[in-house]
């Protein structure tokens, strides 16, 4: 059964997953092309000075990329389910309704982990190539909430899409937008260090929010 669910989710998401992963990698490539350009034309020590003491965030091109990826995967995974109320077919499968949702959610988490891990690792490797350990560490601390925002966007978009009543969707969207802003507060590189684990816990807490929308659907709110 898990194989079949993974198969269905894979058919829905495979091309978008490829495109969105490519977008992530291109964003990283773009960041380090700019870094290379700055180092070549401004001299490395001057650029390092800007990064270390003038809060020049070379990685800011990555800011909304995980958010877009999380949002995109959730949309391509869940919109086909609510189109023509196909979610009824999914709930009719001989498997507990919450279990089937958790399998779909699990698939989404795994592909996001894969995509984010790839982008994160490439970003780290390039950062280590151009910068010293202290700068790289601060950068990784700063980009972590953006990747967490990608997961949060995925969970919240799933909840919004599966909600059947537009009035509630708008309400969920506004609440979600306000929540997502927590992940994008301005600050110097590394400023998020004490907050990252709290944001991770918050992200984990909202991970099951789609089951609430699905429960409402099953009770006739459609």
């Amino acid at each position: 059964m898990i194989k079949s669910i993974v198969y269905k989710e894979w058919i829905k998401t495979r091309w978008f997953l490829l495109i969105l992963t490519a977008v992530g990698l291109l964003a990283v490539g773009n960041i380090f092309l700019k870094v290379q350009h700055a180092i070549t034309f401004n001299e490395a020590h001057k650029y390092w000075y800007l990064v270390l003491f003038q809060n020049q965030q070379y990685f800011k091109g990555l800011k909304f990329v995980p958010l877009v990826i999380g949002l995109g995967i959730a949309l391509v995974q869940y919109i086909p389910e609510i189109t023509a109320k196909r979610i009824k077919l999914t709930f009719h499968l001989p498997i507990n309704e919450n279990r089937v949702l958790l399998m779909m959610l699990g698939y989404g988490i795994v592909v996001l982990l894969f995509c984010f891990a790839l982008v994160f690792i490439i970003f780290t490797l390039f950062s280590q190539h151009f910068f010293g350990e202290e700068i790289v560490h601060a950068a990784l601390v700063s980009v972590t909430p953006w990747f967490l925002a990608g997961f949060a966007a995925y969970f919240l978009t799933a909840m919004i899409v599966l909600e059947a009543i537009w009035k509630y969707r708008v309400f969920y969207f506004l609440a979600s937008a306000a929540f997502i802003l927590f992940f994008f507060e301005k600050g110097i590189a590394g400023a998020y260090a004490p907050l990252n684990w709290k944001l991770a816990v918050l992200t984990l807490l909202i991970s099951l929010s789609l089951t609430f929308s699905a429960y409402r659907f099953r009770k006739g709110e459609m």
Partner: protein
Amino acid sequence: MNNVIECKNLTHYYGNKLVYENLNFNVREGSILGLLGKNGAGKTTTINILHGFLQPREGECLIYGENTQNLSPHTKSRIGFLIEGHVQYAFMDIHQIEKFYSGFYPNWNKEPYWELMSKLKVSPNQKISTMSCGQRSQVALGLILAQEPDLLILDDFSMGLDPGYRRLFIDYLRTYAKAENKTIFATSHIVQDMERLIDDVLVMDYNRVLAHSPIDKFMTGFKQFRFKTKIEIAGLKNEAFVVNLEKAKNEVELYTYESEDFVKDFLNKNGIQFENFSLVPMGLEDAFIGLTGKY
């Protein structure tokens, strides 16, 4: 004979609007029941309750003894479900969707599916979303048959189908159901389709059940009489034996479960002069309209 579906004292409202109150019906094992009703009479509400997608305000429906609000995976595996409009995972092609469903059902039998697919003129990698409504209906039906369910719930199965596909769908379904002793609960807007398919009929109107009986008994028991009279007969509608009465100029159509003699006696005793009295043969659609009225 066991009941596969038992609905007891169903009451449901949308807001303050009553859909029905204390609705009771059963579906016998091995029978084909057709649920008929006008738009808004509660057909889709009933289907949604049967599938556990709607919690009734009061009462309950049981399928194989389990409350439909909490069907176990095993019971769900015994139910084939056709959604209104033959909705399926349209982003798949016919191979992908067969592979997907086969992972869920231990008794999966792909032969009837591929038999139906061989009749469709579709390319192997064609997405279901690009197929015609008729072709999609065959995909949906084939998947249900491959599942080998004991109970089939078909919501408006003839929607969007041309006459050829409707006939193909019905004939295939009835032959299959009778050969394999399957139980079917079906709704359709096209009432004459039901006549070829069903054993039992359940006719619903706003807030109530108008008829629930074997189709043969209903079709022989429910009658239409036509006669001419110049007398004002509006009061006749209130008589207990009159199910429905339509009058256009002097032509009267009277629908009743009573016999020809009974109706004639009544008219004579009440001084209603009439002529050209006749029993009009009816199909299921005529009977349905006679029972529910034209408006």
